[in-house]
């Protein structure tokens, strides 16, 4: 089963290596990892998507907690949080009609065209994994040149079930 793990870490060099090394060494799976500054100076927030049964999850949480640079770890349930991922995708546009068709898809998905060239369109979209995969699936027949995804981030819906 997939899990979203939210982590607060000291904003210090080497923290990513420590986390990644722990996952590798203990054979835990990382599907995606995203990190950035938090609202507090000196603290970064990491979101890791991993999979495993309850026992594995317990070990992941406990082993992460042992790292000195890690301040807090929580396995957050998808019901209580909003999850987003950002994708940038570059697609072939051979003709005007193709371009129009793609732009129509972009509108339906509430995505955005961020760059246009004679033969390509670059599209930006954020959303949950399902929605992003949906758009990419529909763009595939036009010929996707490049996909860049950020990995998932998550935030609690309310203060009450705030994740950290």
């Amino acid at each position: 089963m997939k899990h979203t793990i939210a982590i607060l870490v000291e904003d210090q060099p080497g923290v990513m290596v420590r986390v990644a090394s722990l996952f590798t060494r203990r054979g835990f799976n990382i599907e995606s990892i995203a990190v950035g500054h938090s609202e507090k100076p000196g603290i970064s927030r990491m979101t890791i998507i991993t999979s495993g049964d309850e026992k594995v999850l317990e070990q992941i949480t406990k082993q992460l907690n042992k790292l000195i640079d890690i301040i807090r770890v929580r396995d957050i349930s998808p019901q209580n949080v909003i999850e987003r991922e950002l994708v940038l995708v570059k697609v072939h546009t051979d003709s005007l009609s193709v371009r129009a068709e793609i732009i129509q898809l972009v509108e339906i998905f509430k995505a955005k065209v961020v760059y246009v060239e004679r033969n390509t369109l670059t599209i930006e979209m954020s959303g949950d994994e399902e929605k992003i995969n949906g758009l990419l699936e529909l763009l595939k027949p036009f010929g996707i040149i490049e996909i860049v995804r950020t990995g998932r981030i998550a935030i609690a819906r309310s203060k009450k079930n705030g994740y950290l």
Partner: protein
Amino acid sequence: MKLSGTEIILECLKREKVKVVFGIPGAAIMPLYDMFGKVEKLPFRNILTRHEQGAIHAADGYARATGEVGVCISTSGPGATNLVTGLANAHLDSVPLVALTGQVPTNMVGNDAFQEVDITGITIPITKNNYIARKVEDLAAIIKEAFYIARSGRPGPVLVDLPKDVQLAECIFKYPDRVIRRGYKPSVKGHIKQIRLAVEKISGSTRPVIITGGGVINGNASDELQKLACKTNIPVVNTFMGAGSFPENNHLYVGMLGMYGQYLANKVTSSADLIIALGTRFDDRITGNLTQFCPNAEIIHIDIDPAEIGKNISVKIPIVGDLKNILHQMNSHIAERKNTEWLNEIREIKQGICLNTEDNDSNLRPKYIIKCINEFFKGEAIIVTDVGQHQMWAANYCQFIHPRTFISSGGLGTMGFGLPAAIGAKIGNPKKPVICISGDGSFQMNIQELATAIYNKIPIIVILMNNGYLGMVRQLQELFCDRRYVSTSLSGNPDFVKIVEGYGGTGFRVNNKEHFSSIFKKAVELEQFVLIDCQIPQEENNFPMVQPGSSINNMIGVEES
């Protein structure tokens, strides 16, 4: 007043009450060693070992024998990588160490400079934490934190990498009063509700067994453990790492548990209905086949490291915290009990066991050697071992009645640990006799430390159990590979007596019982470094033992009537 980086390091070591450092200088750590020479009086002893691995094992032996943080120093590059085995060794056995390594100047870091390695990167998985001091202003706080983290909670090794320019730079020295890390707050007090549950569970059990681990020793909880056992009359088994935590001369002591443990201990533990596991991590050498481990028992697991709970085995009542504190609370809540029936049953099991350990000929055998040591020191000596058959003989036959008297590489099983660790143990306990039990294979893995021991006049007795083989592997080849002794014969061994004499020490060779007794007595009286090369039968085995992957209830080399 401004101090240089090296003055700061020196001041920090002084404030942490460091009594001895072990190490070897080199280009990148020259400023620190130079400072050792500049000060009028060095506040600690500075021991030059002959290999960095020797330095870290010596610091490790010192830490295990004293309970204080061991300190070792090396230069950058190969000096630092030579510490790697020692760090892993200390990490797996939870030994508090601080390793200081030199590093190339900060402006050269990352350029593959001469003797540059990313030692913090290399040692992430085998240290409790590590640091690179990038600015002299951070140095004092880093060293303070390193010592705090090494010794608090579940102890472990911490490495501090010291670029050369940082050692030479200057700043105002300020030593922090305390360490505040929001990501590091080891829990000390056990949850009172859990403690009550455990007490209830113990009272309701009919066949309880206490298993002790290294955590009892690290947590200085031996007295509380004895109180608990004696108040409730619960039998105790020590794990290998727990040897010495519960006195073996107590009537409640059953034996050592595990793959090379004692049959009675394995048998009794297997038939328990309640396991009270104290500071132990259910290592595979203890549990054998996990699915068949204590099939009828519920488990109370007390440990300071929450990650150990539920890692290998499902636990009924977990308690996280400091063992001394938790046992003290348990003792004040728990009721006295006699346990007569269960103790009688154990006595009956014991009477039914027949071990094949006849020792009637004049051959010098390990059991006899250790019997002499026991008779002479009565558990008051510190026994340090290397790794292999001799280690298991020592663990099984030596009598341990005090914590910190059995010093051995448990988790990593590091051959070459014995001699340097014995040096460290003796420096930490100058008044206690220190015996290093080693094998001809292990001893040659850090044989250069003979110079350290003999030059510094460190009176250790090395009992070299010489069977001309890498004996533990040979035994496995005999049992499981139809005696194909591939790469285990040590033909080409040196004359160990001559080697010791070459370093200026005293050595003897013995090959029969009588000779050993008289030489051993002489060695003790000499009060100097002595090696006794004991020629033991080449194919002497460690029995009984559990076959890898088998249940601990199922041992080879034992008969039951």
